């Protein structure tokens, strides 16, 4: 088995678990806090076999919105942390001014060890994009607040842009931009 595949399997586990956990916590928390009435059905309808059912459509909209928001936050926070960390790491290598800024903001820990690879960022961004697509679909179906759908779209676009920038930084190491290197 190739090393890339092994690593991809290892990295994918955390966002997969966090995606499910985020959705589940986002349903449990508002249900418990606001003491909402719900029941569980197990009719086979299309993709789904278990349904969490609320008796009021406004409650369903609220709970689904919160659960989508939690799922997105669970994935977006680590993704942007990885993107910023890698960008800082690469930029400080080329630009001493960034190093000074990083020191001023007490973020030196972020650039002393390169433990985040491009594969990390790519996989996390893929999961974030999938979660965003789900949130946007729910928004279009009227099952989630509009601002969450818009936020999901923006977050997804930003993460994809960040991933492309990181990819450029990584490729710069192999094929430097300066012509003198060739």
């Amino acid at each position: 088995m190739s090393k890339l595949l092994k690593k991809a399997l290892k990295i994918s586990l955390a966002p997969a678990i966090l995606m499910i956990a985020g959705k589940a916590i986002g349903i449990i928390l508002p249900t418990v806090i606001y003491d909402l009435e719900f029941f569980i059905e197990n009719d086979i309808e299309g993709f789904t076999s278990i349904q969490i059912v609320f008796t009021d459509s406004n409650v369903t909209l609220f709970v689904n919105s919160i659960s989508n928001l939690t799922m997105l936050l669970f994935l977006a926070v680590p993704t942007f942390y990885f993107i910023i960390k890698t960008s800082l790491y690469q930029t400080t290598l080329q630009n001493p001014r960034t190093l000074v800024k990083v020191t001023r903001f007490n973020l030196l820990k972020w650039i002393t060890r390169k433990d985040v690879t491009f594969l990390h960022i790519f996989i996390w961004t893929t999961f974030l994009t999938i979660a965003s697509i789900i949130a946007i679909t729910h928004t279009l179906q009227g099952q989630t607040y509009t601002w969450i759908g818009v936020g999901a779209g923006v977050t997804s676009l930003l993460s994809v842009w960040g991933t492309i920038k990181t990819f450029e930084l990584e490729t710069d190491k192999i094929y430097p931009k300066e012509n003198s290197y060739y």
Partner: protein
Amino acid sequence: MGKKEEFKKTFSQILEPFALGLLALFFILPIVTVMNLTPITRQIKKIDVLGVTTQDELVIRLVAGQHEIFSGENLTKIDETEYSYSARIGKRGADSYSKPILEIQNNTEEKKVLTFWGQTLSNTRSKIYLQEKEIPYLLQDNTGETYEQKISILPSEKLIIFLALENLSGVQFSELFDMTITIE
């Protein structure tokens, strides 16, 4: 040693497609789980069958079921003579749509008259009406004006009420429809 390495290499080659499948599962399983965890709206059966406990009553049931335009239906009994129905009307193209929403059964010995009054919160130039045996009962016209409608139900009669709407132009957002049902 050479044989061992060769065996290891062959074994890892066999294992590779399974690992790829596992990687795909890591992406597919969370999607399916999240879809499963998405909550839906439905009435609990005991609420759904309003008034069924007493045989000589007017029974109003929610037909429910899935529809591409009408979703999130809710029927609530406010008191013995008043019910509240609500539904979300999704974004739609210029067309006519209808869905069976209520099943009404008169288990009493006398004729009953039901009054319907419903409206949407925003005016989307949609004509909204109830339909029973091909007879339309206009609730809200294109200008947003609302009309009260009465439907009679004979003893032991069962009616299926449809909610219908007509749009001359497409509507790009969903809206809430609320209706009050009063038994006279």
